[in-house]
C-alpha cells in the first residue's frame, strides 16, 4: 500500500492451486480435485510452495507486510488454503469453483485477475512457476496482462527498494537482473533462493485450523464474460506403446552397421543417402 513515504505496508497476494496428489492413483475421468471424493488425493501444487516461501521471505526481510493466499477451487481445496496459512501466510481466500468447475487457463486467469482487483490493495502478485498437473506456466503472464502490470517469470532472487523491486530471473544459460515498478507480477523458480520451501509447523497448523477462510463466488467478481473460452471434451490415457527395443551389439562393427541399416529398412524407414 502506497503512502507518501514510499511503501509502508507490503501486501502480497500469492496464488495457489489444488492439484491431484502425485501419489494418488491416476484416473483420466478424475483429473481435477473436484472430481475426487477423498481429500487425501489432493495436494498443493508443489511449485506454489516455492512461491509461498518467496512471499514470506520478502515480508520477513522487510520486517513487515501481509501475505494473502488466493485459491480457485472447490471445498477439496480447503486443505490447500489451510496449508498456505500453516506455512505462514497471514490469511487466505478461496474462490468457489464447484459447480461448473472452470479449469481452462484463460478463464482461470481472468477470475484470478478479477479477484486481485476485488482485494484492491496489492504490491506483488506471486505465482509458482508452473502447475504440477498441466505445467503451462501461463498463469502469471496472463494475469499480468489482464491487470496491465509489469511481469518477471522464473524469479530466483528478489530485493525491494523504494517501491521498486529488483529480481534475478532464470533465462536460458544464465540469469538476468531486472528492475520492476510495483505493483508487479512474479513467478518464482523452483531453484535459487527459494529452492527449499519451509514446512508447516504444529503451531501454525493449530492457528490455520482456527482461521476462517472467506469463500467468494465467481459471480461476485464482476467478470462480464464468464463463458469458458475452451472446454475439455474428453481426456484419455494414450494407448500403451507396443514397439520393442532391438539391440544390435554383438559382432564386427562394420557388420553391425549393415545389420542396423537392414533392420531399419525392414521397418520401412526412409534412409535417404544410406539406401
Amino acid at each position, binding site marked *: 500500500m502506497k503512502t507518501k513515504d514510499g511503501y509502508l505496508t507490503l501486501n502480497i497476494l500469492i496464488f495457489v492451486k489444488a492439484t491431484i496428489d502425485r501419489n494418488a492413483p491416476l484416473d483420466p475421468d478424475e483429473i481435477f480435485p473436484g472430481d475426487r471424493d477423498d481429500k487425501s488425493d489432493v495436494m498443493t501444487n508443489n511449485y506454489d510452495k516455492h512461491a509461498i516461501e518467496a512471499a514470506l521471505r520478502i515480508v520477513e526481510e522487510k520486517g513487515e507486510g501481509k501475505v494473502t493466499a488466493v485459491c480457485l477451487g472447490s471445498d477439496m481445496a480447503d486443505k490447500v488454503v489451510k*496449508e498456505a496459512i500453516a506455512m505462514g501466510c497471514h490469511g487466505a481466500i478461496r474462490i468457489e469453483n464447484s459447480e461448473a468447475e472452470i479449469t481452462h487457463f484463460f478463464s482461470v486467469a481472468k477470475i484470478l485477475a478479477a479477484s486481485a482487483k476485488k482485494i484492491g490493495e496489492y504490491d506483488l502478485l506471486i505465482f509458482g512457476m508452473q502447475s504440477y498437473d498441466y505445467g503451462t506456466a501461463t498463469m502469471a503472464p496472463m494475469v499480468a496482462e489482464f491487470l496491465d502490470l509489469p511481469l518477471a517469470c522464473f524469479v530466483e532472487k528478489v530485493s525491494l527498494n523504494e517501491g521498486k523491486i529488483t529480481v534475478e530471473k532464470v533465462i536460458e544459460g544464465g540469469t538476468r537482473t531486472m528492475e520492476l515498478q510495483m505493483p508487479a507480477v512474479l513467478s518464482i523458480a523452483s531453484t535459487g533462493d527459494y529452492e527449499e520451501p519451509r*514446512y508447516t509447523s*504444529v503451531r501454525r497448523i493449530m492457528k490455520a485450523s482456527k482461521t476462517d477462510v472467506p469463500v467468494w463466488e465467481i459471480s461476485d467478481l464482476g467478470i462480464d464474460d464468464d463463458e469458458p473460452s475452451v472446454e475439455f471434451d474428453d481426456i484419455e490415457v494414450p494407448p500403451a506403446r507396443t514397439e520393442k527395443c532391438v539391440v544390435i551389439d554383438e559382432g564386427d562393427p562394420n557388420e553391425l552397421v549393415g545389420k542396423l541399416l537392414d533392420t531399419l529398412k525392414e521397418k520401412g524407414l526412409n534412409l535417404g543417402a544410406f539406401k
Partner: protein
Amino acid sequence: MKQLTKIFKTLNFDKETQEQNEMILDMVYELAMNEIIEKEQDWDEEGAHFDPETKQVSYPSGMMDLYKKCQQNDLFSIIVPEKYDGFGLSYTLWNAVIELMARASLAFSMFFPSQGLNIEIINKFGTSEAKEKYLPLLASGDAIGAMAFSEPNAGSDISAVATKAEKEGDSYYLTGNKIWLSHGGAAGTYITFAVTDKSAERGRGLSAFVIDPKIAKENLEVVRIEEKMGLHGSITAQMALDRVEVPKENLLGKENDGLRLILGSLASSRIGIAAQAVGMSETALQESVNYSMQRSQFGRQIGKFQAISFMLADMATRVHQARLLYLNTAQMKHIGEDTQVESSMAKYWATELAQKVTYDAVQIHGGYGYSREYRVERLFRDARVLTIFEGTSEMQKTIISRGTLSRAQK
C-alpha cells in the same frame, strides 16, 4: 499414508482436531519421506561416534540438522500440555508421528519414544519446579529426553538396580553404572532410579529422579558406546555415575516409590515401540511391492507369481493388524483408560510381526535382499532389536498373562 489416515477417520476426533491431525501427519510424512529416508543408509554406515579422550558422543553427519527441522516444526511439543509451551494433542497423533519417522529411519525415530516418556513422567510425577524447568525444554526439543534404567545386573529384572542415592542436605548423590542408554551423553534430561532405602525389601526402596547433566557435570560420564547389530545411527551408551548431584526438586513422586512409578509409565512408551515396528514393516512391505513389480523372472514380474503375491498379502495384513493394535491402544490412553495390558499386547505383537515382515521382505528380494545396497537388509537388522528393548517379548507376555489371569480370578 492413506491406510493410516483412513484409520484416523474411524477414531472419535472432532472435525477441527481431525483436520489438525491430518495436516500434522502430512507434514511429518513429507519430512520423513523427502529428507530423512535419504540419509538412512549413510547413518547406518557411519554410525554414532564416541571420543574416549573427551568422552563426547555425537550422532552421524546430518542427523542433527534434521532434528533441528523437527524442532522448527514443533514436533516434540505435540503431547506437552499447553501450560508448558506444548499443544496438548493426543497420544494417538504422537504415536502415528513415531510410525512415520520409523518408516524413514528407526535410528532417527529413536528421538521420539523416550522424549514422550520423559514428558509424561515429569508431567505426572515431577515437582512444580521440575515441570516448569524441563517440560518447555523437552517441548522445544532443546533437551533430548533419555531413560537410564538398565544396569549390568538389572535388565528384565529391573528391581535389581544397584545404583545408590544418598541424601545430603537438599540434594541426592547418585553412584552406579547404567547401560543401554539411548542418547546417553547427548541428552538434556535422564530419567533414572536408584536405591534410597537399602534396608527395604527388594524393589521397595527405589526412588525415581530426573538427572540434569548441567548440574551433574563431569560426574556423569560416558564410558563407551555399543557396537550393535543394527540401529547404528543411534547412540547407545554405557554411563558411569560418580556422586551425581540431583537436587531434591528433581525427585519424581515420593521417595522409595520409584519402581511402581516407572513400571507404571513404561506402558506408554511401549505403544511407541509398536508404532516403530509398524513403520519399519510398512517400509519393508512397500520396498517388497515395488521390487516384485519391477523384477522379472521366468518371463514375468515376480509379483505375479502366487508364491510372492501371497507373501505380500500376508505382509500387508500383518502391517494393518499391528497398526490397528497400536493406534487403538494409543486412543485408549488418550481418552484416559488404563492400557497396561494392551500396551504390552501392542508392543509384543507388532514387534514380533515386524520380524516376519522384514524376513519376508529379504526373501522377496532374494540375493539382493542380503546386499547392503538394498534397504530391506537394514530393516531386517534394525527390526531385531524391537522384540528386546523396552521389555522383551517374554516380559510382555508375563505382563499380559498376569493381567489376563487376574481378570479370571475376579
